[in-house]
């Protein structure tokens, strides 16, 4: 409850974690607000089906609020003038009038604030992927503010969880992205860091994942617990194993 989990991927694609968390929280009966900026709804839907969850049904019964970034952007860009009717698009920051992500935050807040008839378990905010907001012109400060506001609302007030993905490259020259990633790392309760192998490309091991439990944040004098596993992605699941014990070696 009230946890902030940061997903980072470097040199590889960590979106499998997003798919996992999405199906995990939906199966647990939580109300999920998914800000999907990078892929279309059908992509997530097809993968979720392989993992045993039906996104369309979840949307229809109100358990899932899905913001398809690509579609919203198109609506904003090509939509007619009269359509607005006072309702702001969640991606309003794309137009020059506003430079902060307030509209996006309001969207999240209204989606997750429980109505009286709701019987869901805690609310969950899932974002894939935060780096896209920077590509679209949001400043790092605006992005961090947005996350901060979300934390206050979702984690503290509503006792829900947040899972956010930030993508980066190795030796990245994208300073804004690194700034956002590092800043969020300091404030996260749990960091799942997915990396491609340092030694290059291998068919049996797709990468390694570092799980960092930020116990140091709890001020008990303990250090963060770090665990490292390697993984291989298959069509319907992912196998994890200790480093050096992949099928290729055994």
């Amino acid at each position, binding site marked *: 409850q009230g946890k902030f989990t940061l997903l980072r991927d470097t040199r590889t*694609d960590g*979106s*499998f974690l997003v*798919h996992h968390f999405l199906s995990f929280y939906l199966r647990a009966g939580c109300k999920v607000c998914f800000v999907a900026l*990078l*892929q*279309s709804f*059908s*992509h997530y839907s*097809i*993968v979720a089906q*392989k993992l045993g969850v039906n996104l369309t049904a979840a949307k229809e019964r109100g358990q899932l609020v899905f913001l398809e970034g*690509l*579609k919203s*952007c*198109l609506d*904003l*860009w*090509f939509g007619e003038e009269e359509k607005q009717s006072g309702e702001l698009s969640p991606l309003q920051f*794309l*137009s*020059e009038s506003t430079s902060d992500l307030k509209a996006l935050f309001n969207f999240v807040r209204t989606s997750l604030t429980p109505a009286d008839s709701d019987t869901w378990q805690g609310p969950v905010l899932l974002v894939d*992927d935060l*780096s*896209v907001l*920077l*590509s*679209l*012109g949001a400043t790092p400060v605006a992005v961090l503010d947005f996350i901060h506001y979300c934390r206050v609302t979702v984690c503290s007030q509503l006792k829900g969880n947040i899972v956010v993905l930030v*993508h980066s*490259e190795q030796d*990245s*020259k*994208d*300073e*804004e*992205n690194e700034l956002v990633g590092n800043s969020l790392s300091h404030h996260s309760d749990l960091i799942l860091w997915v990396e491609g*192998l*340092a*030694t*290059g*490309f*291998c*068919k049996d091991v*797709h990468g390694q994942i570092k799980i960092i439990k930020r116990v140091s944040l709890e001020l008990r004098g303990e250090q963060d617990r770090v665990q490292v596993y390697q993984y291989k*992605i*298959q*069509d*319907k699941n*992912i196998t994890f194993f200790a480093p050096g014990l992949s099928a290729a070696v055994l």
Partner: protein
Amino acid sequence: VFTEEDKYNLYSNLLFKYFLAEGVVCGHDLFVASAKEHPDNILKELPAPLLDDSYRNELGKEATVVKAEDSQDSMKIAWRYQNLPKLEASPTTTTKFGHYYDVSKKMPPELLQSIKWQSFYLPEESHLQPKRNICNMNNAYARLLESIQRIIYQQGFDGSDPQKKQKNILRIGIQSLGFMLWGDDICSSDTPKDIHSLTKFLYVLRGLLRKSLSACIITVPAHLIQNKAIMERVTNLSDTVVGLESFIGSERETNPLYKDYHGLVHVHQIPRLNSLICDVPDTKDLAFRLKRKLFTIERLHLPPDLSDTVSRTSKQDLAESAKLLSSGCGAMAMGKKHLDF
């Protein structure tokens, strides 16, 4: 699909034309956009498709020669490699995916006329202002987006017209995006005015492509873009990213390691759509060569190191090339830390 251009733009142009030519042969609709070259000219210079018979004969001859040599002497020194499956250096005649093209011939105009195509040539369009420019994007990009969206909508590629029985695919080709002719200064300045124009354009384009039956290839002069952060963001927003590095003018041209090839193909990213996994290729070391008639992409073979006084430019270079060698000895391509034997 995103292609980083090679320095002199010879080979990436070729790939671009291949993409469009494939569209012509498959009967897809085309949309070609460019700021430098008039799309009419681009289309006139598409390579001609190879008819099955003549190609098979040529290929058959090559293949039989190779086979004859191999069967005679089994490998003596590199016997370990014998157990590896025979590398298919040239495209096989059995698998038919796509078509092959003859670079020395032009596509016959009758084929071109059989498909519908649209073009966007910036010098002709730039006098018009975009209808709306919400995102404060570069005007040229905004006009291009409008054009693409109009075609998609009018021709029904986004499924908006249920009357249209036959579904076709729109192949979009955009040449040299980001180049200064588009009015963007990311190629000419270290601190461009608007570093978000290109990425915003790509995001909206991505939305359009996802919503419709279309595929797009974009070539970008990556070597000219000073701000590397932009390239990282662009890579993140694309499905497939391929970089072409040609050897012209670089020290690799005379390097005996690469004497058979004209350049390297770097696959930076492969699409991972609708699935947890992606189609991971066997090897990531690919090189290309342009023969008189064919442009081929094949696995990088290093010639055997026969003498230890072969003048390689430096040990560092050797390490670089060792990195590129992907063989049965284990996977170590593209990593910073190279393994010593």
